[in-house]
C-alpha cells in the first residue's frame, strides 16, 4: 500500500523529529531566558512544520490537509507572539542577557 508519496511524507516526519529533540536540548543547555526562547520557538516550529508537511503528503483528502495547515499556522502565530511577550517583559524587568 505504501506509495511514493507516503514514503516522502514519512521521510519528512523523520526529518522533523531531530528538531523537536534539539529544541529540548537547547532549552536545557542554553544559558539564559532569551537564548532558550530562541531554541523553543525556532526548532519546534520547524519540527512541527516538517511533521505537518509529511502528514499532509500522506493525508486521505484535502480537508485534513487544510486542517493540518491551519493548526501549523495557529501554532506559528501563538509561539511567535508569546515568545515576543515573554522576551518583552523580561527586558522590562531588567533581566540582562547572558554575555560570553
Amino acid at each position, binding site marked *: 500500500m505504501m506509495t511514493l508519496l507516503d514514503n516522502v511524507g514519512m521521510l519528512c516526519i523523520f526529518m522533523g523529529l531531530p528538531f523537536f529533540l534539539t529544541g529540548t536540548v537547547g532549552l536545557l543547555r542554553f544559558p539564559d531566558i*532569551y*537564548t532558550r526562547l530562541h531554541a523553543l520557538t525556532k526548532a519546534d516550529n*520547524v519540527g512541527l512544520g516538517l511533521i505537518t508537511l509529511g502528514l499532509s503528503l500522506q493525508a486521505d483528502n484535502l480537508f485534513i490537509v487544510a486542517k493540518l495547515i491551519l493548526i501549523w499556522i495557529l501554532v506559528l502565530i501563538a509561539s511567535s507572539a508569546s515568545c515576543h511577550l515573554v522576551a*518583552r517583559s523580561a527586558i*522590562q524587568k531588567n533581566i540582562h*542577557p547572558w554575555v560570553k
Partner: protein
Amino acid sequence: MEQLLNGLRSFIVQKNIHLSIHGHAYLGRSVLLRFLLFSAVWFVLTGSDTASWIIGLPAVFLAIGISHVISPYPSAPLSFIGVCSFLPFFIRQSALSGIDVMRRALCRQLAVNPGLVSYTTFLPEGSARIFFVNTISLLPGTLSADLQEDRVTVHTIDKNLAIWANMQNLELRIAILWRVKLHKREAL
C-alpha cells in the same frame, strides 16, 4: 547586495508606491474579507456538515465584530506578488533558523554569543509593523524582544550575524507585501 537593498529602499521611500489608505473607503471590503476568512476557518473546522452553519454563521459574525473592535483600521489587501515572493523567503528562512538553532544546541561548546541590538523601523504603525515584529522571531538568530514606538529591540543569538542587513531585507519585503510606504522620520 546591501547597496542594492538600500537603493530599492530609498526608491520606495521616495516614489510613494502605495495606495493611500483612508479608513472608511476600505471598510466594506475589509468586512467582506474577514467574512470570507472566518467562514473558511469554520469550514475547515467543521467539515462539509451543513447543519453546523446554524452555529457557524453567528460565530462568524461575532468574530467579525470582535476583530473590528480589536483592530479597527482596515488595511489594504496584501499584494499578490508580495505573497508569492514572501512565502518562499519565509519558509526558507525559518528552515534555516531551525537548522541554525540545532547546530548551536548540539555544538560541544555552546556556540552562542548573544546580545541586544536596537533597530529603528521605517514601517508605519499598524498591522505591517506588528507582522514585522512577529516575523523577526522566526528568522535565523534573531528574536524581537521589545517594541517602543518605532524602535525594535532585537535579541540576537550571535553578534557576528549580519543583523542590520537582514532586518532591512525583511522590512523591504514586508513593505511590498502589505503595500505600505517606508516612511522616514524627521529626526533621522
